[in-house]
């Protein structure tokens, strides 16, 4: 029995160490930042006495290790404290920003995979042909274009000129809070409530930022898919499949593609993780009340409670995705069972 | 020259532990060639890797040149013993020229006079100066294996470990390499350990050989016995029969 427990123990220890390192690094970053949370709280006009009062109130007059210790204790008890810049409990803030980001990231990754995988496969199968170059060009542009630029252009064209999509924000302002909040993801909540109008409005708002993010993850996914597929298409078993007289489609999708699923899962998880970390610039352009903006703002004013909590979340997301891909490996690849 | 007793090697831990080599003992006198034969996975390579210090997890005792050696070896050991690997395509660094590959051991051991030594050893293995600045991919399999042999010889070792030195080569090339090894061994009085699954190759080079099966040494016999088919074990007999070619009558279909 202990033999089975040992690797699990070692795994959890390494996860815990990663998290601790992550927190320590964030804490350190927070300390070296020249942004002064007290200045943010008291503003420009307060006198020295006020400054000292706030300093003491925020606990910033304590030695560093005490601050870190207190912080760790709070984290472990699930108390993320209060965010300076929103005045809310960090946990409450996170309850709002995380679903928004998850929603956006999920739609984006669906778009990214939906386009990226077929494109990547086609590019590998028709390697060196025009379609390969076209996909490459398309995805490289997605990889290189500054996203805030593309975002504003998208808004001008599709919102201001054509009126096809909603403008900034998650939903038309008058649908705000129109459906009860269950998951925090508007598309889901509106469906659960059966409110079609809200759903359409939410869809119109999410489509542009999601397309944008989806496009840039499509770039990554299609390139990786191409490279994985090229590896597989050179394998002997692909020759075997062709010898059997299978059509190209069956060979590619039925045989080669099934073998890249595992690697692909990792890639998709990585890009999904990246999206969950929040796309600050996209969120800014589209006024998406998401995680990336929250974290960046917190960092910019040195709001350590919020920053540390966010880091912990990111770390957890990272670890969870690692775990999920591990499980997927086991599920998709019989060799690892 | 080489004494191995009760060598045991296990890989993995706990339930998926595999014993690759189990209680193997043999002795090899100086200036002789000792063969190790057996089927794939029976532990031949593992023994060799233990002998040359590449594999550090073993138990038992190994004495080389009269001195017991532990898992970790010093530089002096590597001047005395060298190894030639099975796959000449994999054992040469793909981004180094022949010159770099052959200079490397000299640099490691701080031996001067690199240029001359490289020329000498190239001549010794029958490669001209024209090969000196080629990359491995510009050489044929046989030529690569010669370079690999040259690399082993350039330190002037007294012991040579050969891991299937010809199994990746064509018959015609194999003949060249075998002849070369034979010449060098005789000329320099080297002690060699040769691993192969081809009995004919073993018969061609070795003085004595050991037959292995699943990590154990099942039989040890002289080359004369092998030539005349005087093996005792049934397993050795079968190996000898199989190497003669296909004979429908001898094969029983049902197994597995």
């Amino acid at each position, binding site marked *: 029995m202990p033999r089975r427990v040992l690797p699990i123990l070692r795994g959890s220890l390494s996860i815990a160490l990663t998290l601790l390192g992550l927190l320590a690094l964030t804490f350190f970053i927070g300390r070296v930042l020249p942004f002064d949370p007290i200045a943010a709280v008291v503003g420009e006009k307060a006198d020295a006495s006020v400054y000292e009062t706030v300093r003491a109130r925020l606990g910033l007059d304590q030695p560093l290790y005490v601050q870190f210790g207190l912080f760790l204790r709070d984290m472990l008890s699930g108390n993320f404290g209060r965010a300076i810049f929103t005045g809310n409990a960090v946990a409450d803030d996170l309850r709002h920003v995380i679903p928004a980001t998850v929603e956006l990231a999920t739609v984006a990754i669906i778009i990214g995979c939906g386009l990226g995988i077929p494109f990547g496969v086609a590019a590998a199968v028709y*390697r060196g042909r025009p379609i390969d170059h076209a996909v490459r060009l398309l995805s490289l542009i997605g990889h290189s274009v500054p996203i805030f630029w593309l975002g504003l252009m998208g808004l001008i064209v599709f919102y201001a000129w054509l009126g096809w999509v909603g403008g900034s924000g998650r939903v038309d302002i008058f649908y705000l809070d129109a459906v009860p909040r269950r998951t925090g993801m508007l598309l889901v909540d509106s469906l659960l409530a059966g409110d079609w109008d809200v759903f359409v409005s939410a869809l119109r708002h999410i489509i542009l930022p999601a397309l944008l993010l989806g496009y840039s993850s499509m770039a990554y996914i299609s390139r990786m898919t191409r490279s994985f597929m090229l590896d597989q298409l050179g394998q*002997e*078993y692909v*020759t*075997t499949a*062709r*010898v*059997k*007289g*299978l*059509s190209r489609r*069956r060979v590619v999708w*039925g*045989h080669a593609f*099934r*073998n890249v*699923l595992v690697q692909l899962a990792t890639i998709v998880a990585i890009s999904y993780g990246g999206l969950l970390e929040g796309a600050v610039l996209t969120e800014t352009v589209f006024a998406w009340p998401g995680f990336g903006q929250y974290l960046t703002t917190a960092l910019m004013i040195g709001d350590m409670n919020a920053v540390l909590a966010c880091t912990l979340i990111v770390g957890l997301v990272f670890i969870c995705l690692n775990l999920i891909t591990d499980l997927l490996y086991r599920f*998709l*690849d*019989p*060799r690892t069972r | 020259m080489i004494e191995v007793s009760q060598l045991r090697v296990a890989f993995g831990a706990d339930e998926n532990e595999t014993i690759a080599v189990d209680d193997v003992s043999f002795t090899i006198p100086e200036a002789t060639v000792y063969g190790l034969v057996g*089927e*794939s996975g029976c532990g031949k390579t593992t023994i060799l890797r233990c002998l040359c210090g590449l594999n550090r997890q073993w138990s038992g005792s190994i004495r080389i040149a009269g001195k017991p050696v532990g898992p970790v070896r010093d530089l002096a050991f590597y001047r005395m013993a060298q190894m030639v690997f099975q796959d000449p395509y994999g054992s040469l660094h793909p981004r180094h020229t022949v010159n770099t590959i052959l200079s490397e051991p000299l640099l490691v051991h701080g031996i001067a006079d690199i240029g001359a030594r490289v020329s000498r050893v190239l001549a010794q293995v029958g490669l001209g100066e024209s090969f000196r600045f080629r990359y491995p991919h510009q050489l044929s*399999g046989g030529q690569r294996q010669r370079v690999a042999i040259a690399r082993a010889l350039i330190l002037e070792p007294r012991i040579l470990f050969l891991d299937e030195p010809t199994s990746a080569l*064509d*018959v*015609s*090339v*194999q*003949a*060249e390499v*075998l*002849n070369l090894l034979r010449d060098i061994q005789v000329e320099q009085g080297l002690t060699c350990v040769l691993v192969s*699954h*081809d009995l*004919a*190759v073993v*018969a*061609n*080079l070795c003085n004595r050989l050991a037959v292995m099966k699943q990590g154990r040494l099942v039989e040890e016999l002289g*080359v*004369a016995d*092998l*030539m005349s*088919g005087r093996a005792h074990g049934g397993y050795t007999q079968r*190996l*000898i029969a*199989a*190497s*003669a*070619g*296909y*004979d*429908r009558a001898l*094969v*029983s*279909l*049902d*197994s*597995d």
Partner: protein
Amino acid sequence: MTSNSPILTVEDLRVGFPTPRGTVEAVRGISFAIGRNKVGIVGESGSGKSMTGRAILKLLPGGATSSVKSMKLGDTDLAGLSESEMLGVRGKRISMILQDPKYSLNPVMRVGHQIAEAFRVHHRASKAEAEERALEMLAAVRIRDPRRVFSLYPHEVSGGMGQRIMIAMMLIPEPELIIADEPTSALDVTVRLQVLAILDELVTTRGIGLMFISHDLNLVSTFCDEVLIMYAGRIVERCPAAELHQAKHPYTRGLLASLPRLEDGHKRLRVLERDPSWRDEPIPAEA
């Protein structure tokens, strides 16, 4: 049995690879015919054996160019077939066994499904029917517990078993010709013989033509009926397998001579001296 009417006749097959140093001609105008017997192709590494086999199935690696005067399989001229028409030939009429079962089976598919798939591509059959056939085929290659093996993954079977599965997969659509490219060189000596025996039996009883590619002269001379010897992309000699040891061409003789023999002991081996004229001398007429 009409053993002398050839299944496949190939005339003037050429395969080339364009490289920066000029085109490498891997196969240079070879012609041969295969009937319902076992034809061995031997030669040193790089002599074009595999490319010949692959050119027949039109499965050359990307970048290769090939041409052939005629390549007749029965009445069909493979030379003129399009890629989609070839789909009906591959597997159904000609199939190929590759060298290493470890790499030639799809690692994420159960072996039984891979076999059944080969059947279903060419025969209208339900899934259950195909699986039934696959099980029969597994039994035919002497696998003792076909049901268990059916649902194994390739990494769970041994090399010898893998190669039998490969044979089963290639035989299930009942082709007329099988190309075996070094089907046993990845296997242990003792296992090798068993696999060969199975292949031998199935090919002989079903009247299938076999093109057996190998570099092991010993093996070819004992296993095949007829031997073609290739050198530098050309067939330099052809002879009945039994007469291989009396071969006339200096290349063949050289190869034979350089083979170490158990009974010769420490004898110095003869080294093959290559004569540049072999590359281009006239090719002997059909035997």
